[in-house]
């Protein structure tokens, strides 16, 4: 496959909880379900471990989209973690929207360990959405460039 140099390749960070979504991503791999290489997964014990700071940091460092995946509501390995995560992200995303980071660049998705197909489909769709939006510059511009 010839990769077009000019083609926009978004940088996407996916936070996945160890018990459901990370396992769902593993299942997508085991079943050879493709999704774009633009998605890079960071393993966290639970979606409630995702500090809003991590997401701000990602955008600041040039991420074009951030997705957080956890167990389905009610199925959290730690009983209640994903409920906290859901509320935190709702607030954070609306604040990001206010800052000019489109709502479509951030997402929360529940993927169980058995939903490899859902994981792949979600990532395909998310990458497509973010690719359409193009490069994200808002927060990156705010950072103090180190180099």
């Amino acid at each position, binding site marked *: *496959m010839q*990769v077009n140099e000019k083609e926009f390749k978004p*940088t996407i*960070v996916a936070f996945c909880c*160890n*018990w*459901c979504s*990370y*396992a769902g*991503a*593993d299942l*997508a*791999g*085991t079943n*050879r*379900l*493709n*999704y774009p*290489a633009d998605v*890079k*997964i*960071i*393993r*966290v*014990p*639970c979606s*409630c*471990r*995702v*500090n*809003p*700071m*991590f997401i701000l*940091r*990602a955008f600041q*460092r*040039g*991420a074009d989209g951030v997705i957080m995946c956890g*167990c389905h509501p*009610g*199925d*959290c*390995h*730690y*009983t*209640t*973690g994903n409920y*906290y995560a859901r509320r*935190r992200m709702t607030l954070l995303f609306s604040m990001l929207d206010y800052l000019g980071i489109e709502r479509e660049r951030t997402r929360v998705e529940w993927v*169980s*360990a*058995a*939903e490899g197909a859902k994981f*792949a489909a979600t990532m395909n769709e998310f990458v497509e959405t973010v690719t359409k939006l193009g490069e994200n510059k808002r927060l990156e511009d705010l950072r103090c460039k180190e180099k």
Partner: protein
Amino acid sequence: MQRIGVFVCWCGSNIAATVDVEAVSEALKSEPGVVFSTNYQYMCSEAGQNMIKDAIKEHNLTGVVICSCSPRMHEATFRKTVQGAGLNPYMVEIANIREQCSWIHKDKQTGTEKAIILGKAAIAKVHLNAPLTAGESPVVKRALVIGGGIAGIQTALDIAEAGFDVDIVETKPTIGGKMTQIDKTFPTLDCAACILTPKMVDCAQNEKIHIYSYSEVTAVKGFVGNFTVSIKKKARYVDTTKCTGCGVCTEKCPVKNVPNEFNLGMNNRRAIYIPFAQAVPKVATIDADYCNMLKNGKCGVCSKVCTAGAIDYKQQDEIIEERYGAIVAATGFNPIKLDNFDEFAYSQSKDVITSLEFERLTNAAGPTSGQLLRPSDGKHPHTIVFVQCVGSRDTSGCGKPYCSKICCMYTAKHAMLTREKYPDTDVYVFYIDVRTPGKNFDEFYRRAVEDYNVHYIKGMVGKVAPRADGTLDVQASDLISNEQLHISADLVVLAAAIEPDKSARPLATMLTASMDTNDFFTEAHAKLRPVESPTAGVFLSGTCQGPKDIPETVSQASAAAAKVIGLLCKDKLTCNPCVAHSDEMLCNGCSSCEKVCPYGAITYSDKEFRMPDRTTAIRRVAAVNEAVCQGCGACTVACPSGAMDLKGFSNKQIMAEVDAICK
């Protein structure tokens, strides 16, 4: 500065085919702190592990990054490896370049680029890793088995055999489960009751086993080695310590029209009942929905005839709490409801029955005393059609997408037994595929065809039309002869798909055990850890994990017991050291963390601090009980002052990963 070694695994061709492993190890060599980088065919092999150990010693490595399969697969393996070379096991990070890279990206350049980035993220993280020491927690030496079918019974017997206490919680008034309703078992045609009831009696007599019948689990707290479980003992209005099981009450009760669930509603029982003669415990239960005394206070016959004085109309539900080290789910299955399959006229004709109903019709303890008679008119059926895959392998939304696994064999059994007992009966079996993997299984099916002359027809039934004369017009396709058939049948038997018991879903939530989309419990690893749930301390036995026949269920039940025994043998368990930790100097005592902790692992206390101006101040600060903390991290995000952090997944570590990925 860490001295980091990078080890890139080929995983045979699993990784090497779509990721240029040489390029990855070369690229990561120049990352800051990396003093050694190599690649090898199988890092998890003995040679691969020795390579890691040697490199640690030779290069004085302080951190190790392994680019390989998912950490869910071999993180534990590699932690042991580095420990063997004298390194703290938590100085290892895994970059998942198989499941998340080589297996999903077909283009080698794409795969290689991504693998390098994942490797860099792991290197960035390991720079900030600190040695962790796992704490220990005690193990309560008692197991709980939820579900008292053959799976639960076998698991309990095996655990008890090893000398541990074990409790069985069963929602029905008796243990025994579905197997009590089955007449004969394939492929040996043993009588089910003859092999099951002795095991039920063993359970009752074993002093290590306690049976909570007619009871439910209502809450589960705690974690591996130390669960606290609430069990509701439903009021049965009979004092089980007094009831002798004589059965006089069940004969004298005036309410005679209660559908008998043991016979699937094909006959009636009384409002006070013992499910069947061999029930364990053999005590009566009053059905509150039907009992006149409980409904309107008018009756009391059972109380009058009970010479043991066991009847207690005032009994209440009782909730008890018990502590366990391990929990086994053995909640079993049910045949699906056939509401979505009315083309087979199940709800229109009494003579269209399920296979489980057929079992009752051929069972000596069943409603017809074992005579195979039509439910509609009590006559002997002369033409019987069996329909396989009713609701199994169904992706239309009406049934279940999976194969129910047991139907091919029990249908062969039914067909064979019918032909043996009633040679004047014509028996047809419509099948899509006959699936008979298993010892002596295909031979068994072939006997049905060759020795018993059962007509096996490849094709499906499309419609069952009940005729006014009482026959059933079965319209079906015969794919081999390319014909549409019309068979005038007297009885149609539907091999209904099986599904997990409805109680499994809420139980999974209580246990925080994961389930698949069909509500079967998920195993920790499909091949290598088939009887463990991913949730530590929770084990799986029988059909709650997937469709199984009896021999398979029993083997899995024993396997689950072996795992439980392995756990209960330990006096202490090593805790997960990736737990929360509060920096007392930063803590402002706000209690935010305490409120979100699902385990109550955080406590506050007043502590004396020496201030910069040499005075002392008393401040309220949080402390984490490391034996109780499970490491979810909820508190770390709730903490407004940044005092709370999670070992192994610290803020700095995750930020470092973010930075590496977004570079």
